[in-house]
């Protein structure tokens, strides 16, 4: 067997894991129970906090996974069992019938138009209809239909077969039966996902009873431009725009009655996103969010909330909703709620959205059961603090919400992290080499263009509207065209053979296909060209289906004329195409990891475990970073042993070169070929240079040193970190140092913890994410030591997201008192005649409380490392406004930088807890390994090129390039493109006043040639 991993679940987690593994040349079987990969993310309209269009960012990944030679996708399939042990698993998969021959089907969709049976559209949550035979959604991968056997007239009643009749490719196969597939794999990743809470269980909210109450995911479809209302916000009851919309948070989450005690982690931000989007769709609509705690704990989340409040005028009401009533005449909804001071209010809304939580339901639990995967008390896969992506069964890993609710970036991090884990078990297996034998490329230099034109009928998809013979006839009159013909389906295998034949027979040196969209089909024809000995870039597509026949069905003449125009433009352009070659860049298989904290050490070990050399650079003498001060895990366990074993592993690993007390002086080069100058300090300062192929930034962050609440002025005021250190010292050494050497936790009487010290204020408008959990952890610890101790936690929002909520609950049950304060009315600390007291306004009692205390603990925030700036300049990667490193994409590329070959993990990215740092470190390692696994990589074919003779070296392109792929040659004073980094966006090209840069494949003269014949 060669390296192979089974990934179960084709949502974003499964896709990301599969892609990372595939890029490590590991074969992946990706099993999806639905008809298309994509998961829940395909149904989202936008994503927080950037409001990126979900489908726009996801669909390239779908296409990539669908066409990757190392990924085999099995849809409509479920995992039955896994036998054996790592790394020798055997999985049994049951593939249910689709009733479509996937090999034959071209996805033309004609059958869909012929099907007489309409069914509810699952993709739109049943808010619209689709056909019984249908393609799940336009961007589906594979893009072929499925027959819903429950409704099919033929399968149910033996009559119809209209789809079968309409299919030219004879791809409909009613005889399909369930199929059992056995797959051997070295490791398994479970990305089973989760499901939405069934809101009908909360009958007090009237879901399914009152038409204008909908769930957040339904509302997501309403917002979507491709949804049932094309993005118009309309009430189901009367199809009118609502004047006011309410969001009810925590529906099915943090709910003792239902037993879903955890927090679903994403609903707050989803609601915030929605209230912003509503203003874009229906400016002026009043929006209210009824919430318990606003859990905006992620990167730039708080700013997003502020924007919703301040700019979009959304109202946030701190309250729990008791019930929803309806006005029978207007179908308006009356929301009944209690305010902070306990008064009950009723308010009318036109539409109510229930922010439903995520949960692990029957199907998921059943699968877990079949696989012997232990679940935790919340029904999610059980994991530990230090092994966050492992399951209870060795060799089987998790990614995504199967192990607990989480948002997309964390899911993606876990996916990459699980890829790192999964791949680490495969070291004994060989790589499956996939190499295609291609004929030698025909040299077309100096030849005049000999263009072959192939016009697709696409069954009737094109031919019913566009007069295809006329288009073929027309194209044959154009200069340079030596062959024109039509195809019934140009994407069929037969057609590829004809193209190859014509290339040989007529010595074609350019090919134009007029058919569907290049976005899905260009690679197919390029491959055909390659197989025929032509450079794949001597090809141009004219889109006469999606952008012509389908959209001008009523204007047949104009559509034919337009098709001729589009073809003429393509021909004019293709004449100027020339063969493009990709350059090969060799890769240095070593990694530089900057920072020896928990993240840096984890990433280093993961890389080293797979045989890659690592230079681990730590600026301090000791390894461990901030984790040295984390003495207890959230569950109360000690962390020491874990840290020490990690340090031991690092020190004893032969693949890791450790540089402590060392700083980075200079970084040069690019992906695959970096050169870094290191300077060791200490007693014997020295400099050295290391060469490596990738960089992982794990430089950590710093603790905010408070200036408020008498910190530094009164010994009884300490930070959480100091408290934890002190508790640990007392527990393990029996005595404490620091500000409270003599105090005894057992004799303390009253203490206060203040949250958000140095966080979420004007200067640092972000949440430090970990302080709530840390305070809860330390409070529980103290309370266990000293049950009589009164602990008051003064907070703004308790952000114990996900399963951390259980500890919050525990703390409350133990009698720890949580008192909410508002930003405008911060608590005050006073030392009055030696007595320390705290004044805070209690919002429920609506009056000031004065608490006399022995100890004040400040939950001080995490701030970015001051050295980030200089490092970011050396790396040429950006920082965000708060000084943390800014990843390439906040949703789908959470550990990458825009610059290839550089990755980020740990606190350098944003505040996070140990589990998250470990996950991200593993993700960074996996992403790094997608590069290091290869000996070399190919640059893109369509990259920018400089015409030196025109370049004056003004440097504009250098500043514009988002990938830092352009440098200025200081001697020649010309720009130089680094093809290894160039992604071919062309921003430099259109910015260059001298036209000294051009983009291969999209050259100015090629585009102008098309323009000239419009």
């Amino acid at each position, binding site marked *: 067997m060669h390296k192979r991993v089974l990934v179960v679940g084709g949502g974003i987690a499964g896709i990301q894991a599969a892609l990372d593994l595939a890029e490590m040349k590991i074969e992946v079987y990706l099993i999806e129970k639905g008809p298309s990969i994509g998961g829940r993310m395909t149904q989202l309209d936008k994503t927080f906090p950037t409001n990126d269009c979900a489908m726009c960012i996801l669909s390239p990944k779908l296409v990539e996974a669908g066409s990757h030679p190392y990924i085999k996708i099995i849809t409509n399939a479920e995992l039955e069992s896994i036998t054996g042990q790592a790394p020798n698993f055997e999985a049994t998969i049951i593939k249910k019938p689709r009733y479509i021959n996937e090999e034959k089907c071209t996805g033309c969709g004609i059958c869909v138009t012929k099907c007489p049976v309409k069914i509810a559209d699952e993709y739109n949550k049943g808010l619209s209809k689709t056909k019984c035979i249908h393609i799940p959604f336009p961007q589906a991968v594979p893009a072929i239909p499925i027959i819903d056997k429950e409704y099919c007239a033929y399968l149910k009643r033996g009559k119809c077969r209209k789809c079968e009749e309409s299919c030219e490719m004879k791809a409909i196969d009613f005889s399909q039966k369930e199929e059992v597939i056995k797959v051997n794999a070295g490791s398994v990743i479970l990305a089973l996902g989760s499901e939405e809470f069934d809101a009908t269980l909360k009958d007090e909210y009237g879901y399914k009873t009152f038409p204008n109450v909908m769930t957040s995911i339904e509302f997501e479809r309403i917002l979507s431009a491709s949804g049932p209302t094309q993005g118009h916000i309309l009430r189901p009851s009367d199809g009118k725009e609502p004047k006011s919309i309410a969001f009810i948070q925590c529906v099915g989450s943090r709910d003792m009655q239902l037993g879903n005690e955890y927090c679903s982690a994403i609903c707050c931000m989803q609601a915030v996103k929605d209230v912003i989007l509503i203003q874009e769709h229906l400016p002026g609509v009043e929006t209210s969010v009824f919430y318990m705690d606003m859990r905006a704990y992620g990167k730039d989340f708080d700013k997003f909330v502020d924007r919703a409040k301040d700019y979009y005028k959304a109202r946030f009401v701190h309250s729990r909703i008791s019930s929803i009533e309806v006005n029978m005449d207007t179908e308006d909804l009356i929301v009944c709620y209690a305010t902070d001071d306990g008064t009950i209010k009723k308010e009318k809304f036109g539409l109510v959205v229930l922010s439903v939580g995520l949960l692990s339901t029957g199907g998921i639990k059943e699968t877990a059961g079949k696989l012997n995967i232990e679940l935790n008390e919340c029904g999610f896969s059980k994991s530990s603090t230090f092994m966050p992506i492992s399951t209870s069964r060795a060799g089987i890993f998790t990614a995504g919400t199967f192990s607990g609710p989480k948002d997309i970036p964390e899911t993606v991090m876990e996916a990459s992290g699980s890829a790192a884990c999964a791949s680490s078990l495969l070291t004994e297996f060989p790589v499956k080499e996939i190499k295609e034998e291609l004929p030698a490329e025909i040299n077309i230099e100096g030849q005049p263009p000999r263009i072959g034109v192939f016009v697709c009928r696409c069954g009737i998809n094109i031919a019913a509207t566009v007069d295809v013979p006329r288009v073929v006839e027309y194209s044959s009159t*154009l*200069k340079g065209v030596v062959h024109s013909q039509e195809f019934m389906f140009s994407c069929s295998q037969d057609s590829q053979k004809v193209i190859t034949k014509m290339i040989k027979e007529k010595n074609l040196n350019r090919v134009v296909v007029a058919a569907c969209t290049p976005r899905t089909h260009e690679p197919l024809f390029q491959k055909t060209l390659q197989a025929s000995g032509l450079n794949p870039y001597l090809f141009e597509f004219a889109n006469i289906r999606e952008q012509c026949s389908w959209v001008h069905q009523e204007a047949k003449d104009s559509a034919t004329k337009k098709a001729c125009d589009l073809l*003429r433009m393509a021909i*004019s352009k293709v004449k100027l195409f020339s063969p493009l070659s990709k350059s090969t860049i060799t890769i240095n298989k070593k990694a530089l990891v900057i920072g020896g904290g928990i993240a840096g050490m984890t990433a280093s070990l993961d890389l080293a475990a797979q045989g890659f050399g690592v230079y681990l650079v730590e600026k301090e003498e000791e390894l461990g970073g901030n984790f040295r001060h984390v003495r207890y895990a959230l569950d109360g366990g000690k962390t020491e042993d874990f840290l020490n074993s990690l340090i031991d592993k690092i020190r004893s690993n032969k693949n890791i070169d450790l540089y402590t007390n060392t700083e980075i002086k200079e970084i040069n080069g690019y992906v695959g070929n970096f050169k870094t100058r290191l300077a060791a300090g200490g007693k014997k300062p020295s400099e050295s240079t290391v060469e490596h192929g990738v960089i992982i930034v794990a430089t950590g962050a710093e603790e905010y040193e408070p200036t408020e609440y008498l910190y530094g002025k009164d010994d009884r005021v300490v930070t959480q970190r100091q408290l934890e250190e002190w508790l640990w010292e007392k527990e393990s050494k029996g005595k404490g140092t620091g500000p409270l050497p003599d105090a005894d936790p057992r004799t303390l009487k009253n203490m206060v913890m203040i949250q958000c010290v140095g966080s979420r204020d004007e200067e640092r408008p972000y949440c430090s994410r970990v302080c709530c959990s840390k305070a809860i952890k330390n409070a529980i610890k103290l309370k266990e030591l000293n049950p009589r101790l009164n602990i008051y936690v003064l907070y703004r929002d308790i952000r114990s997201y996900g399963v951390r909520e259980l500890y919050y609950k525990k703390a409350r049950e133990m009698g720890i008192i949580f008192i909410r304060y508002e930003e405008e009315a911060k608590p005050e600390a006073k030392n009055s005649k030696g007595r320390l007291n705290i004044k805070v306004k209690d919002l429920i009692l609506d009056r000031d409380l004065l608490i006399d205390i022995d100890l004040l603990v400040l939950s001080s925030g995490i701030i970015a490392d001051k050295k980030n700036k200089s490092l970011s300049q050396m790396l040429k990667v950006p920082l965000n406004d708060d000084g943390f490193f800014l990843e390439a994409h906040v949703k789908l590329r959470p550990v990458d930088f825009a610059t290839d070959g550089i990755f980020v993990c740990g606190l350098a990215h944003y505040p996070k807890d140990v589990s998250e740092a470990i996950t991200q470190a593993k993700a960074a390692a996996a992403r790094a390994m997608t590069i290091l696994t290869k000996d070399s990589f190919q640059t893109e074919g369509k990259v920018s090129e400089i015409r030196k*003779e025109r370049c004056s070296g003004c440097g504009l392109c250098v500043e514009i390039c988002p990938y830092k792929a352009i440098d200025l040659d200081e001697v020649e004073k010309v720009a130089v493109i680094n093809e290894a980094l160039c992604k071919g966006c062309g921003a430099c090209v259109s910015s260059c006043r001298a036209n000294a840069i051009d983009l291969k494949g999209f050259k100015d003269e090629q585009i102008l040639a098309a*323009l*000239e*014949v419009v």
Partner: protein
Amino acid sequence: MENKKFKIIKKKEILKLLESLKKEYSIFVPIEDNGDARFSEFKSGQDIFWDYRNTKISPKEILFPQAETLFCFGPGAEVKAEGSTPGGKDYLIFGIRPCDAQAISLLDKVFGGEDFEDPYYLERRKKTTVISLACSKPQIDCFCTSLKGKPENEEGADIILFDLGEDVLAGAVTKKGEKFIEKQNKWFKDAGQSDVDKKDKLMDLSLNKIKSQIDIQNIKEKLDNAFNDLLWNEIHQKCLGCGICTYFCPTCHCFDITDEINPKAADSKTPEGKRVRCWDSCMYPLFTLHASGHNPRPTYKERMRQRIMHKFNYCPENFKEIFCVGCGRCIRNCPVNLDLREVLVSLMSLGSLCKDKKI
């Protein structure tokens, strides 16, 4: 001159005369255009700018337009030489200054020389009658008298006119001019001696106004060995490399020929393109840029040297004429006041002082 038979015509009558010639000729006259003078096709009811000093753009554009289509080509069009005058009419250039008329005679040598004939230019030239207007308005940067010129220079003109106020004195210079006057005899009267005296006085006055006098005797010989002189390093320094001096010069005649492709040709029966000729300038780097990327005149220095050498050395060599008429346009319009006279003066100092400067 002494024996010339002068005719006289009332200024008012001239407009009528021109009006009557409109059918036969395309007539170009100086008109006022935004405070400057420019030659423009004569329109009925339009007055002639009698008092003009000289036109901003030289009238060479009439015979040698800034851009002209030589022929069209392509599947839809037969190859067809253009180059004929619009409507096939003859040209009458009326009121051109003597320096510019002289420039036409220089252009004739280039476009109608022994070695090389330019049919486009020659066809127009053959059909052209040049009526010059003696100069009574020299400007401070005029220096025609330093060359071959003077206010009543006749070279290049078929007829020369003198503006005497109410009347205009006309004298035929060439046979063509004689015939023209003969044919239009009804408009003219014989001039009296007083008219001629008046003209002489006017010309004396005019001549006196030309203060700018430089000695460029034997400049051709001076420049024979000056190609590598260090003086060029300084002369060009402030040149911006624009084309004003060459575009405005009545004797500069360099051009570029390119094909222009008709973007709409692919789908219709219209011609695919045309070959056009347009002015070019030796002051532009592209003028001598080879396809290889090599440029034999890479900097301002070489280009400036070329312009001077061409006018004052190569042309005297090839055509036995200095290709400068002293009209002063290049001086007047230069954005950095790079004065040709100064350049010439410093070049004239060559040999005497600066032998040691030579490379």
